[in-house]
């Protein structure tokens, strides 16, 4: 994977070579500014050599060491300062560009890309300082324009440093997004694979176990439980978008399914507000607990979700012996309010209701109704 800053390094290399060409043009056109024109060309040759060496160095991340950055800055600064002995006093006084011309910006840019705003600014100040030194102390004179170059250099270095940090951060964000996407795709792939293999085997174990009876039946039952749990796990998260504050009652109730409890739902999600889903689920759990308590550990139960449009009904039926008529009222009178409170009470709070009916020969049936357009009640 290429570094996000690779294009920046490449553009710095382009800038340095372009600057060399500009320097050559200035040198060739203005021999009159130079006392030692020949030596100026010698310095130029060194600049060419160093540009080649440093570009090769910066091109490889492993070679971007402090030594390279230090040498780059030192050599460039020296080349700038050499101007004081190469140019004529008049040229220095006029504030002619140093022998390095725009090439001197190189280290400020490389420091900025590598180290950010502060390091870029530091290098720019060193190089800008050198151009200022060329003036008064070394024979020149301060002018209104003396600080223009250094300030532009400083701003450019800081801007490049900022942009370099920005690209790094953008790249990291993009990479995180790509990782997330890859993870979810991998998850989907795994889900498919699990479906095709593990779930099939679990379903088979359940089937064979039930036929064999005895201990094998227990193993089969456990396999069935795991199959239901695993299926809920892999199908649950990929659910379609659900409006804020709502949940799919079918999906939540499917989590209650086991080898003894079948949850029967429509193909499409049954959306209710979160509170109603939580309360209905709690009521369904209470009803299933009742089945366990009164009909034994092997009684089967069915939970049917029926979305009638204006209301949602959930029917819980067991294949137990049924409840003797009047038994529930007796329980309430004895102060044992389990069924009444956890089922009927919850439904009444939702603006709906619960009917409990029992027919000999077809078990007990609890029917919960949750209206969709119920008046808002404070919790």
């Amino acid at each position: 994977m290429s570094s996000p800053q690779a294009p920046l390094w490449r553009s710095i290399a382009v800038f340095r070579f372009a600057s060399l060409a500009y320097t050559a043009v200035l040198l060739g056109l203005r021999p009159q500014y130079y006392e030692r024109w020949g030596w100026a060309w010698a310095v130029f040759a060194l600049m060419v050599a160093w540009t080649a060496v440093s570009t090769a160095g910066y091109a490889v991340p492993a070679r971007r060491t402090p030594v390279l950055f230090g040498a780059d800055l030192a050599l460039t600064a020296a080349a700038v300062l050499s101007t004081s002995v190469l140019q004529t006093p008049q040229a220095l006084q006029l504030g002619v560009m140093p022998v390095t011309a725009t090439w001197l910006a190189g280290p400020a840019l490389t420091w900025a890309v590598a180290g950010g705003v502060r390091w870029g600014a530091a290098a720019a100040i060193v190089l800008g300082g050198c151009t200022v030194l060329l003036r008064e102390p070394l024979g020149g004179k301060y002018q209104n324009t003396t600080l223009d170059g250094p300030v532009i250099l400083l701003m450019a270095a800081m801007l490049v440093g900022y942009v370099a940090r920005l690209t790094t951060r953008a790249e990291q964000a993009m990479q995180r997004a790509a990782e997330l996407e890859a993870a979810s795709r991998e998850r989907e792939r795994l889900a498919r694979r699990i479906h095709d293999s593990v779930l099939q085997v679990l379903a088979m174990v359940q089937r064979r176990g039930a036929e064999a009876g005895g201990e094998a039946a227990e193993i089969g039952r456990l396999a069935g439980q795991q199959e239901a749990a695993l299926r809920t796990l892999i199908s649950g998260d990929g659910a379609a978008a659900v409006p804020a504050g709502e949940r799919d009652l079918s999906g939540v109730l499917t989590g209650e399914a086991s080898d003894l409890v079948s949850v029967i739902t429509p193909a499409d999600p049954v959306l209710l507000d979160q509170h109603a889903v939580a309360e209905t689920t709690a009521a369904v759990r209470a009803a299933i607990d009742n089945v366990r308590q009164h009909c034994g550990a092997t009684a089967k139960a069915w939970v049917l979700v029926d979305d009638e449009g204006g209301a949602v009904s959930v029917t819980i039926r067991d294949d137990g012996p049924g409840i003797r008529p009047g038994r529930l009222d007796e329980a309430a009178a004895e102060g044992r309010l389990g069924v009444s409170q956890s089922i009927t009470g919850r439904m009444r709070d939702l603006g709906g209701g619960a009917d409990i009916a029992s027919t000999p020969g077809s078990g007990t049936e609890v029917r919960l109704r949750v209206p969709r357009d119920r008046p808002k009640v404070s919790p």
Partner: protein
Amino acid sequence: MTEAAPPAPRVMVVDDHPMWRDSVSRDLGEAGCHVVAAVGEGAQAVRIAPSVRPDVVVLDLQLPDISGLEVTRGLQASCPDARVLILSASGEHRDVLDSVKAGATGYILKSASRSEFLDAVRRTAAGDPVFSPGLAGLVLGEFRRLAADPDPAPDIPRLTDREAEVLRMVGTGMTYKQIAERLVLSHRTVQNHVQNTLHKLQLHNRVDLVRYAIEHGLDSPAPGSRP
């Protein structure tokens, strides 16, 4: 297949999982069914069905090449006498519903016991739809969905109150016998109510497909398309 008092049903098994394919084939063989083919791909099933002439196709919906719906449609076209019994994992609600609307006559979960499964194959061979509680819930939900359409078509199928009641009972695991006792109806009447709901959906599906074809100027709907 015209003689012999209860002719052994000819069954084709379509399941991409070898373990299930072998196990189901073995169970069917032991129970006296004639397993005419056991294949792992949908396209292959559609292709060979006309030559092996199955009475019942036991179909898993999770196939590597084409969807269960496409297999059901393909079989209806290539081998109209074959009845499709879906033997599939739970959690494939849409697929099951689409296949049933396209003409599959039964749905049974893979977690069902061997005897339940063999019974389902026999009933399918006899032409009775196999209405598991899960299928009843899906069919009931589909009628609810069609009724809730804000812009309903004039010929939208509706459930009678009695049909809705029966479907809800099937959906909570009651047998036809239990339902017949509860509602004081004959077993046959209960069965008719259940079959009616399925026929209404299948008919509506065909009408829908024809309307779609006319609206889009097609001679035949493209496979897999749904209006």
